[in-house]
Every structure is written in structure tokens, then in C-alpha cells.
């Protein structure tokens, strides 16, 4: 990723400028993401926000400052948040001890909890005040960080008069948060303030292609340079803004636009520069997104599709099963919003178990046969493996009182209890399963093998099972494939259907889960389990991604839990760690790092889940 590369370069420069042979004090985002998210939530942060890495932002202050040093244009990673995520730098090594760099990460995670909409310069100070008041334990840490970071700031004596006044104000605002209400302007931009959040999200959420619209909006209207490409992009983007309007994403609100205007005014020395910079940033953004989303085709397609107007999104759906969807911002169900199309492949060729699975299948079947039953003690038996002491004592009492019966039941024995369980395996058949996991297999191949082995194993038990798959292309086309209905016998025809599964489009998880829940609810067994097999997050073209998709999925899971169904998720999305607990709870999912492990893991999991 280019920005990381540039970041590295910058890091080298800085360390070259400060200490030549200091050890590496870099703390990576990956190292702190889990504890920092926990801290964020514990201090009251939004449970649904994910922590992500920030993309670097062109920061004029740093650029100029560094230009003096090296003549190289620089980008700097600042933290910011929106309603999808809290973005933190991919790595921090500003400070001479890794402990301090780590503390800076934690500080940002904590400060994020208190950030409210408002003027950037004031709000960062106020949030700091509030946080320190609520959690006074952070005061020592704050001071430590302030002093460490102040020492990185430019010497006031080296600055021009205006810049010195400005720098003085920043100093004061850091040392005594809340004490400065106005940032004096200066022709040159200031050096970045790493303890604070960035005034506005420089770009949209991570995988949404929203170019820096604020820059665009503040381009002078007589800008004749903008190309057709730009226009198209801005059109798509406007819709995004529309969608966000009702939300609580306050950073996008008018007051923050003011902030941004102010920011630009202060930052951009001349109008000419502003235009070229804005352009360059936008273009760079585009390239970054394209290179970034090797996997995220959704955002690229969204970009190219030139999205239809919002109204056409409201057209009535005709055939298929209508299902609701949860709109988390509105906190209500969109009734009959999704149309699910049940699909059964009819003309698939029958087939036998693939030979490469034969040996494993035999072994697994054998193991699973022992799962059929639960052993418990059966008391008061006429025959049995052990004496039932209770029954015996009772018998003695009865003998004494002369009321004993002749059919003596003085033993206990093991009872074999039939299991009473149904399991629905729901496989994600989205486009991303087309990706290769190694030289010979794609995700879909691994899922196929898993379905085979799972079926082989379960048909050796008395457990009821069904196999289904899903993929979607917008809300009116959620395809729900029946591979094996509960009532169907597992045979060569079913094997043929398993063999025929192939990657589809997107992942509208909520609808699929709701439908799976309906099917499971029809099962009369004592226990009902939904096993979701997936390789990524919920996503679809029409709004269904990021937080929206996750919240709908979460709601769908809540619904089926209420019906007494136990959901469990197996995923091969390495980055899934952050949102899965939010959906499935701790212990409600496993992340499989090595996709080829999936079949084996699936079975051992099943065994554990159902005991």
C-alpha cells in the first residue's frame, strides 16, 4: 500500500533527523487493535464501531516542514472517526519509546469515545477535558504524551510571527485543554497534532468510494477543469451524502463543513494550490482505492455503475419470499424489503463422493457414529451394571415394614438416549469465494469439500440436517439455494447438487439468515442449530455494507435466537475478528486461518456444539 510505504519513508526521515541509531519503537496497528477496541468499548464507545487503519492524509504542515528538510511531499496518518469505524494510524513510531507509542494509540481510542460533533479545534479540547474528568486515571498518561509530543513540535523561535502565535495557541490548548477557543490564523499551516482527531474524515469510510467531497465542494464553481470522470464520481457520491443525511454522522454536517472551510482557508496558501491539491488528492484517492480493493469488487462496481436514483430503489417486488430488513439508523424494519428467490438446481448430474475425500469420509463417518447417543444413568432397573443404592435402601425399608414388592428393581444401568437435533448449514456462495486459497483450490472448492464431508458425517448420525447456500444481487434478488432439504435423503443426487455449487454475487446475510431461521423453526427437534459458513462480511450493492449490513445481520441473528435457534459462524475471513463477536458473541464463532482446515474444523466444531 502506497501510503504505508510513504509513511515508512517519513518515519525513516524523522528518525534520521532525531536519533540516528535508535532502536525500532514502531507499534503496529495490528498489535493494539484488539486491546484498543476493548478499551474503546469499555469507556463507553459505540459497540458497533470497528477499528480500522487510517489512510494517510496530505498534511500541509508536515509537508512544508518536511519539504524544508528533504523536499519530499509527505503524507501523515491522523486519526478520525465516522459512523462506520474509528480510524487509527497503521503504525506509530513518533515517540522514542514503544511504550509511549502504544499509549498514544490507547489515548486515541479513549478520546474517540468522547468526540462529539463540533468545531474541530474546540471539540478536541473539550473531548480531552471530558475524558480526563470521567477517567482521571488517564491524566498522568495524557501529560506524559503531551510533553513527549510537544518536544517534536517546531521551535517557536524558528517560526514566522503569525505561525508562532498560532503554535503558541496549540501549545496552550494541549497543556490546558479547554483554554483556547480560537485558533489564530497564519499563512503557513501548523504541524499536525497527533493527540487529536482529524477535523473531518479526509475520505469516506474505508471501502466506500467517497472521494474527498469536502475538497470537491469547496472548489470554486467556475472550475472548468473537472472532467466527465469527476462528474460521474460526484454523482454517485451525492447519493451517499443523501443516505447519510438522516444518520448521526455529525462530522458531515454543516458545522463541520464550516470547520473544513476554515481548515482549508487556513491551510491553503493560494487558491491555485487549493485546486491542484484537491485534484491530486482525489486522484490519488482513486488509485489507492483501486489498488486496495483487490478483493473489494463491490466498491469498484458501485463506482462504475453510476447508481440509479434513490426512488427506483423503492419499486415493488413481485414474486419470491418477501423478508424485512433492519435499518439501524432508523431503528425499524423495512417491511417486505428483500425478495428471496428459492432456487433448487434440478438438472444437475448425480455424482458420487469425490475420490479425494473417500478416505477422510470413511474415518469421519466412523467417528460420528459414536455421536448418535448420549449416555445417562437409568435408575431402578431389574438388571443393570451397578447396584442402585437408593433403591436398595428403600427396599430394606419396605422389607421391614412388610410392604415390599416382588419385582425387585435394585440396579442402575446406562441408558442410551437418542439425540434430538437438527442443523442447517448455510454456505456463503458469494463472488469472493472464487478467490484462490492456495495453488490448487479456491474458497468455493473448500466449501464444497466441507459440504461433502459434513453430509457424510451427519448421515452417519441420527441428526436431521439441511444444506443451503445463498448469494445476492441487490435486495430484490437474494438467491437461496436448496442443496439438501431436511426431508431429503443424502444420496448421489444431493452429491450432484453439492458438486454443482458455484460462486454467485454478493452477501446479503440478514435475509439468508431469516430464511434459514424459518426453515429451522419448522423442525420439531429439541435442539436447532444454524451453522453459517462464510468468507467475509455482509455486503451487497444497495447500501448493504459496512455498518448497515452488519447491523441487519445482527438483528436477524437476534430474531432467530428468540426462536430458540443456536447460531454459530465459521469464517475464513482473516480480518473478521473485529465484527464477529458483535454478531455472534464470544464463543459464537471461529475464524479459520487456513482454509484447507475448514472441513476438519467444521466437524470437530459440530461435535462440540451438539454434545
Amino acid at each position, binding site marked *: 500500500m502506497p501510503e504505508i510505504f510513504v509513511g515508512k519513508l517519513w518515519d525513516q526521515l524523522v528518525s534520521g533527523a532525531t536519533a540516528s541509531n535508535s532502536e525500532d519503537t514502531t507499534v503496529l496497528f495490528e498489535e493494539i487493535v*484488539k*486491546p*484498543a*477496541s*476493548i*478499551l474503546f*468499548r*469499555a*469507556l*463507553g464507545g459505540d*459497540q458497533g464501531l470497528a477499528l480500522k487503519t487510517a489512510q494517510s492524509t496530505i498534511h500541509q504542515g508536515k509537508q512544508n516542514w518536511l519539504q524544508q528538510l528533504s523536499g519530499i511531499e509527505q503524507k501523515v496518518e491522523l486519526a478520525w472517526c465516522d459512523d462506520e469505524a474509528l480510524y487509527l494510524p497503521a503504525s506509530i513510531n513518533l515517540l522514542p519509546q514503544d511504550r509511549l507509542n502504544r499509549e498514544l494509540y*490507547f489515548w486515541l481510542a*479513549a478520546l474517540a469515545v468522547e468526540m462529539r460533533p463540533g468545531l474541530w479545534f474546540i471539540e478536541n479540547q473539550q473531548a480531552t477535558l471530558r475524558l480526563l474528568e*470521567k*477517567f*482521571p*486515571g*488517564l*491524566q*498522568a*498518561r495524557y501529560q506524559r504524551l503531551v510533553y513527549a509530543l510537544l518536544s517534536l513540535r517546531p521551535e517557536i523561535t524558528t517560526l514566522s510571527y503569525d505561525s508562532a502565535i498560532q503554535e503558541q495557541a496549540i501549545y496552550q490548548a494541549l497543556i490546558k485543554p479547554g483554554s483556547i477557543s480560537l485558533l489564530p490564523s497564519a499563512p503557513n499551516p501548523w504541524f499536525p497534532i497527533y493527540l487529536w482527531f482529524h477535523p473531518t474524515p479526509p475520505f469516506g469510510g474505508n471501502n466506500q468510494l467517497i472521494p474527498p467531497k469536502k475538497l470537491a465542494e469547496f472548489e470554486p464553481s467556475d472550475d472548468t477543469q473537472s472532467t466527465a470522470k469527476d462528474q460521474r464520481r460526484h454523482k454517485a457520491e451525492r447519493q451517499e451524502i443523501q443516505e447519510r443525511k438522516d444518520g448521526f454522522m455529525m462530522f458531515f454536517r454543516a458545522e463541520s463543513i464550516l470547520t473544513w472551510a476554515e481548515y482549508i482557508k487556513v491551510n491553503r496558501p493560494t487558491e491555485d494550490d487549493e485546486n491542484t491539491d484537491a485534484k491530486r488528492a482525489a486522484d490519488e484517492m482513486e488509485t489507492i482505492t483501486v489498488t486496495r480493493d483487490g478483493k473489494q469488487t463491490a466498491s469498484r462496481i458501485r463506482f462504475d455503475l453510476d447508481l440509479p436514483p434513490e426512488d427506483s430503489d423503492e419499486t415493488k417486488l413481485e414474486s419470491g419470499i418477501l423478508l424485512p430488513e433492519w435499518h439501524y439508523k432508523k431503528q425499524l424494519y423495512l417491511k417486505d424489503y428483500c425478495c428471496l428467490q428459492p432456487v433448487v438446481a434440478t438438472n444437475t448430474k448425480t455424482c458420487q463422493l469425490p475420490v479425494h475425500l473417500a478416505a477422510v469420509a470413511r474415518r469421519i463417518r466412523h467417528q460420528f457414529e459414536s455421536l448418535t447417543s448420549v449416555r445417562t444413568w437409568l435408575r431402578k432397573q431389574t438388571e443393570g451394571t451397578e447396584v442402585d443404592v*437408593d433403591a436398595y*435402601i*428403600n427396599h*430394606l*425399608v419396605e422389607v*421391614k415394614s412388610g410392604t415390599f414388592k416382588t419385582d425387585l428393581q435394585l440396579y442402575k444401568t446406562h441408558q442410551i438416549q437418542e439425540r434430538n437435533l437438527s442443523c442447517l448449514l448455510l454456505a456463503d456462495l458469494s463472488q469472493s469465494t472464487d478467490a484462490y486459497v492456495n495453488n490448487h483450490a479456491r474458497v468455493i472448492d473448500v466449501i464444497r469439500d466441507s459440504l461433502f464431508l459434513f453430509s457424510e458425517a451427519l448421515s452417519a448420525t441420527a441428526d436431521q440436517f439441511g444444506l443451503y447456500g445463498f448469494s445476492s444481487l441487490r435486495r430484490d434478488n437474494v438467491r437461496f439455494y436448496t442443496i439438501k432439504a431436511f426431508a431429503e435423503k443424502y444420496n448421489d443426487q444431493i452429491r450432484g447438487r453439492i458438486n454443482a455449487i458455484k460462486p454467485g454475487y454478493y452477501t446479503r446475510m440478514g435475509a439468508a439468515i431469516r430464511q434459514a431461521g424459518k426453515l429451522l423453526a419448522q423442525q420439531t427437534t429439541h435442539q436447532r442449530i444454524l451453522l453459517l459458513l462464510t468468507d467475509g462480511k455482509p455486503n451487497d450493492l444497495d447500501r448493504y455494507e459496512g455498518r448497515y449490513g452488519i447491523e441487519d445481520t445482527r438483528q436477524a441473528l437476534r430474531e432467530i435466537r428468540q426462536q430458540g435457534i443456536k447460531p454459530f459462524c465459521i469464517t475464513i475471513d482473516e480480518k473478521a475478528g473485529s465484527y464477529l*463477536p*458483535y454478531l455472534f*458473541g*464470544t*464463543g459464537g464463532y471461529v475464524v479459520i486461518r487456513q482454509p484447507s482446515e475448514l472441513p476438519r474444523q467444521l466437524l470437530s466444531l459440530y461435535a462440540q456444539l451438539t454434545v
Partner: protein
Amino acid sequence: MTKAAIHIAAATDQHAASEVPFYQPHGDEVELFEHAYNKQLPLLIKGPTGCGKTRFVMHMAARLKRPLYTVSCHDDLTATDLVGRHLVNDSGTYWNDGPLTRAVRNGGICYLDEIVEARKDTAVVLHPLTDDRRILPLERTGETLQAPVQFMLVVSYNPGYQSFLKGMKPSTRQRFVSLRFNFLDAAQEQQVVIAETGIDLVTAKQLVKLASALRALKQHDLEEVASTRLVVYAAALIKNGFAPIEACRAALVEALTDDEEVTAALMEVVYACFGE
């Protein structure tokens, strides 16, 4: 019944203590309990672990001057363990009342803690006792006991795993008066911590703030939630001279997780409350 179980039953066979144990009410549960007692209705208390259920029942028993029979249910607990059984000694066999039977005979309060853990067959003896008949048939001795007005059945469980009510007949289910306990609000919890340990107000406040921060992690990051009990333990350690950070680590953090990364994160929360 195993020896241990008999022992527990005997040990908790407490007679109306003259001193009423401290209890900080959440809301109007004291009045509700008294109402149920006066109307001879069974009471069901739901709530997470360590939120004061046991303490509440002890408090109420003392207040109403009734003996309390507490049974901690477990998955091996059968109806026989509650009702009683024949035992053998040198001179032969003799009948030994279980805690439920004793509570009925003596007009006491029988408290079945974590009732869902008990075997299914326990419901059979509870039915006639909790519906309007209020009787306890002792199959083994041929007796049928009529519960006196002072007898009361209280059951508790931690919802989330299973529902106790589902296993009950509607006629029984509808008679239960239900109470849901949650954690106390901050000011109340501070009172408890101070009353239980004699710790100073400032520390009590910090501990309660820490606890509520940790409670925000329920479901998402932690399976267990920091209970008032754990807060009281931490306060007791501090009162005994432990450094707050170490006390919180020992009594709260390590009790909530085994995962090292999560431990580190929880310690960050401790630092945010207590400093480093």
C-alpha cells in the same frame, strides 16, 4: 444424597437470625417479596451472578423472622435430595427430611438457588407445592404435608442459558411472582461496597466506575460480567492494604478472562480509572 449435599443442607438450615444482614434494595423488591409472602405465592428471582440475590433472600428471611433453607442446585440434584430419603444406621433405616420438607414442616423459606441446574424431576415435587394446593406429598413415607402460611418457596436463576419457566406447567408458572435483578446503579453500588468493606468513598467510586466500564464489555468481549461480588472482593483487598491496581487485577481482571490480550486491555481500563 451425597454426604456433601447433606452437609450443605444442614449448614444452611439457619434459624431466624436476630440480626438482619445488610441489603441495599434496587427498587421495590422488598415490598414485592412481602406481598408474595403474605399472599402465599412463590417468588422467582432472575439476575446475573453476584448481583445480590442470595443476600436479598437472607435479608428478607431475617426481616420476616423465618428460618431459611438454602439449596444450591446442581445437575445431580434430584427430587429426593429436596424431599428427603431413608438412611441407614446401626439400628436400621430411618427417614431424613430434605431441606424442602423441613422448610414446609417448620414454616420457613426455602430458597432454591440456580434452579435450572436441578434435574427435571424436581419440578414434579414443586408443582403441588406452588399451585393453590400447597401440599408436599412424601411418597416414601406416605405422608402428605400441607404447607403452613409461613412457608414460602423462592427460586432464582441466571437467565440467558435456559428458561426455568418453560419447564413448568402454566398453572404453576402463572403463580410465580417474578423479580428481575440487575446491577445496582452507581450510587447504590458504592453504598454496598462501603457497607461491606468499610472502604473510603473515593475508592468505592473508582471501583464502581471500573465495574460499569467492564460491564459494557458483556457479550462482545467478555462472557462473564463484573459482578458486585467481585467489586466487593477488590475493595476488601484494597482495604487490607493491597495497591488498587493489583487488587483490581486479582479480584476483577483475572476473574473475568484467561486471554492475555484481553487481560492487557482490561488493565488499560483499570489504569484509566486508577492511574498507573
